[in-house]
């Protein structure tokens, strides 16, 4: 066998961001080791040595092999980590709980930087590149969704630094483990959308899921957290088992692991044959696995409890990052349903039904919630329903009315682009909302809606930002949420699903009530507002303002982002 070092480096480059996240996990543990035993001389010797050895190794690779790879971001990142840890130790000894969070933020930022570089290369190129023997597919679609997952990690790591239950004394010990799980979950999610191989899909989905179960239960001493973790684990294992069974049927009949090849098999398969039936079962079971991750009704039962019981940064990650990559893999999966497949119209109606039930259920259930996180849990279910609208339209465009066969339609990318735009907007507004929940809960010590009464006046900037997020989640201009809904609804109408768009419109009105209730409570002035000592968190507030600014920016200038989404949709290879 020919071991070509250059080809290894090339392949490693394609998964560079994920590798950085894996490296971040190791650095987190190393830093933790150092911080535990920093009174011992050995840690003072060991930590700089390890850091410099790693830096030197990075420098050595291009120097000795003569292969030109720029590793300056990694180099810079390691130096930054070293500086953070040393300075924190010298300057803030004993009060440096934020160090693991800072390390994770640096790692996530580096991964984002690498993804940005990859995006610049990939966008405009059109063709997808493969590496690792076809396991990893690098295209604009994948890079965009990996970027969303990575950005979620960046923001949620930042939130973790300020999340009170993780700063308090006994809980503070778990921050490193928590961040490691968060980073690994993000890496799993990023691998998930970077591949179209069933085996690798399953592996990365498990990496994502296992780390999610663990994170949810990491508020030790909180019964809701443990209960949520157990429920999530049990539901998740069953869903994963069903999905794996579906995969095994697909693999068993087609003999292929790559999604496009399974798609080819589906198209050459004789109709109404026993294989056809079993392949349908396989596809449906696989989709039920994704639907579980996406909290589509009736696979949503875990969501409210988990969202309420989990640490808030985890809730934010699950509702945004995990959802984005799960939608990503579902869209990739739909890729194989193109062409002449007899049962696809049935799937259309199933998906349309799921969309209606999901959004209606989510909104109606959210109406009478008293806990902020639980409310956003239900609202997140509703938003999954809206996004599914864009997916439904894709099916429809493939049906040829003359022959009843499926064909490629004019609007192919439309629904997909709408979903991708929605996911991006949802990242800004939902992360912002959860950040605001963390900020307010740090003041009140509770996550009940009643307890944020009048707090908007006390911290007008965060209160204002929260209002922007709520407007955007409702879908009121000039916010990104408005255009997200606009594109999805328009795709549905263009696709002949006018009734779906109408139902979604009614749902938007329903959602106005509960989002408005939060806003009203925030700026209520009836003299009864509790007086809370205000812990200052200017750095958390700064991120919230940044997210609010982004929400407004894409609400006024959606064009460029929309173009990016459209190009990513095209790169799926229709």
């Amino acid at each position, binding site marked *: *066998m020919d071991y070509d070092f250059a*080809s*290894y480096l090339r*392949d490693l480059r394609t*998964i560079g961001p994920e590798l950085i996240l*894996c490296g971040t*996990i190791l650095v987190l*543990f190393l830093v933790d080791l150092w911080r*535990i035993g920093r009174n011992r001389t050995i840690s003072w010797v060991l930590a700089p040595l390890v850091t410099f050895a790693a830096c030197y190794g990075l420098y050595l690779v291009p120097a000795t092999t003569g292969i030109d790879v720029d590793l300056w971001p990694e180099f810079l990142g390691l130096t930054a980590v070293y500086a953070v840890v040393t300075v924190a130790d010298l300057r803030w000894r004993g009060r440096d709980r934020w160090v693991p969070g800072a390390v994770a933020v640096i790692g996530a930022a580096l991964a984002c930087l690498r993804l940005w570089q990859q995006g610049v290369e990939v966008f405009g190129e059109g063709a997808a590149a493969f590496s*690792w*023997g076809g*396991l*990893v597919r690098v295209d604009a679609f994948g890079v965009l969704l990996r970027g969303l997952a990575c950005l979620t990690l960046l923001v949620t790591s930042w939130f973790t630094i300020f999340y009170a239950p993780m700063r308090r004394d*006994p809980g503070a*010990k*778990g921050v490193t*483990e928590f961040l*490691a*799980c968060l980073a*690994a979950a993000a*890496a*799993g999610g990023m*691998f998930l959308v970077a591949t179209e191989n069933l*085996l*690798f899909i399953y*592996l*990365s989905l*498990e*990496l994502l899921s*296992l*780390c999610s179960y*663990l*994170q949810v*239960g*990491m508020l*030790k*001493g909180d019964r809701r957290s443990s209960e949520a*973790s157990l429920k999530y684990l049990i539901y998740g294992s069953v869903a994963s088992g069903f999905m794996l069974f579906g995969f095994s049927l697909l693999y068993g009949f087609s003999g292929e692991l790559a999604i496009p090849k399974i798609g080819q098999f589906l198209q050459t398969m004789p109709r109404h044959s026993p294989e056809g039936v079993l392949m349908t079962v396989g596809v449906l079971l696989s989709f039920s696995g994704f639907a579980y991750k996406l909290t589509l009704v009736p696979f949503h039962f875990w969501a409210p409890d988990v969202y309420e019981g989990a640490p808030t940064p985890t809730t934010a990650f699950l509702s945004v990052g995990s959802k984005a990559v799960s939608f990503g893999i579902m869209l990739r999966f739909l890729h194989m349903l193109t062409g002449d497949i007899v049962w696809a119209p049935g799937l259309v109606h199933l998906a349309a039904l799921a969309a209606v039930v999901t959004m209606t259920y989510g909104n109606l259930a959210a109406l009478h919630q008293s806990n902020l996180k639980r409310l956003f849990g239900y609202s997140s279910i509703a938003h999954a329903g809206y996004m599914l609208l864009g997916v439904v339209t894709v099916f429809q465009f493939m049906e040829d009315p003359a022959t009843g066969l499926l064909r490629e339609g004019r609007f192919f990318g439309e629904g997909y682009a709408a979903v991708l735009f929605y996911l991006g907007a949802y990242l800004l507004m939902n992360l912002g909302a959860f950040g605001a929940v963390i900020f307010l809960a740090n003041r009140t010590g509770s996550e009940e809606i009643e307890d944020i009464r009048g707090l908007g006046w006390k911290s007008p900037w965060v209160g204002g930002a929260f209002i922007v997020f709520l407007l955007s989640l409702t879908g009121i201009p000039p916010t990104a949420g408005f255009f997200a809904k606009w594109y999805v609804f328009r795709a549905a109408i263009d696709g002949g699903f006018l009734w779906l768009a109408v139902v979604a419109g009614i749902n938007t009105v329903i959602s106005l009530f509960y989002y408005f209730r939060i806003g009203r409570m925030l700026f209520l002035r009836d003299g009864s507002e509790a007086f809370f000592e205000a812990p200052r968190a200017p750095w958390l507030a700064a991120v919230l303002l940044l997210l609010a600014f982004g929400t407004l920016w894409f609400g006024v200038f959606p064009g460029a982002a929309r173009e990016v989404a459209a190009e990513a949709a095209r790169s799926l290879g229709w």
Partner: protein
Amino acid sequence: MSAEILAFLVLATATVAGGVVTLWSRYVVHSAFGLMLSLLGVAGFYVLLGSDFLAVTQVVVYVGGVVVLYLFGVMLTPPDREERSIRRIAVAGIFAVAALVVLLKAVFGMEGRWYGVDPDRGPASGGAVIREVGNAFMDKEAYLLPFEIASVLLLVALVGAVFIARREGGRGS
């Protein structure tokens, strides 16, 4: 009914029955043995599917490793008072010595062979399959990446599980 279907039904019954015993038994030891039965049934499926390597791995890792580890764990936890009777210990001792004798005889009877298969000259298939699996795991164009990612998964799962299972205030203080 062909022999294959019969074997499948027997194995499936054993697997499911083992699982049911694991869940419903009130005694941890019985649960462990139920689990062993279930895992052995799965190993049988692998044999039935012609995947000998997987079957052997299943037996070595799960039946031989994991379940025995459970049993050791149960053994080392403090027992009930009533279990400490002389009669019980004597019976267990006789079984233990008998098992030891059988094992020792088997070990010394091997004379350098491993289950009668000489690794250099044995049946080509066994060695070839293992070699193929190993190569696929280490080949960049095959499954090197999933193999490495699995190690990340195991690392994080291990650390997280230890954290969850650890008693409050265990570390550092």
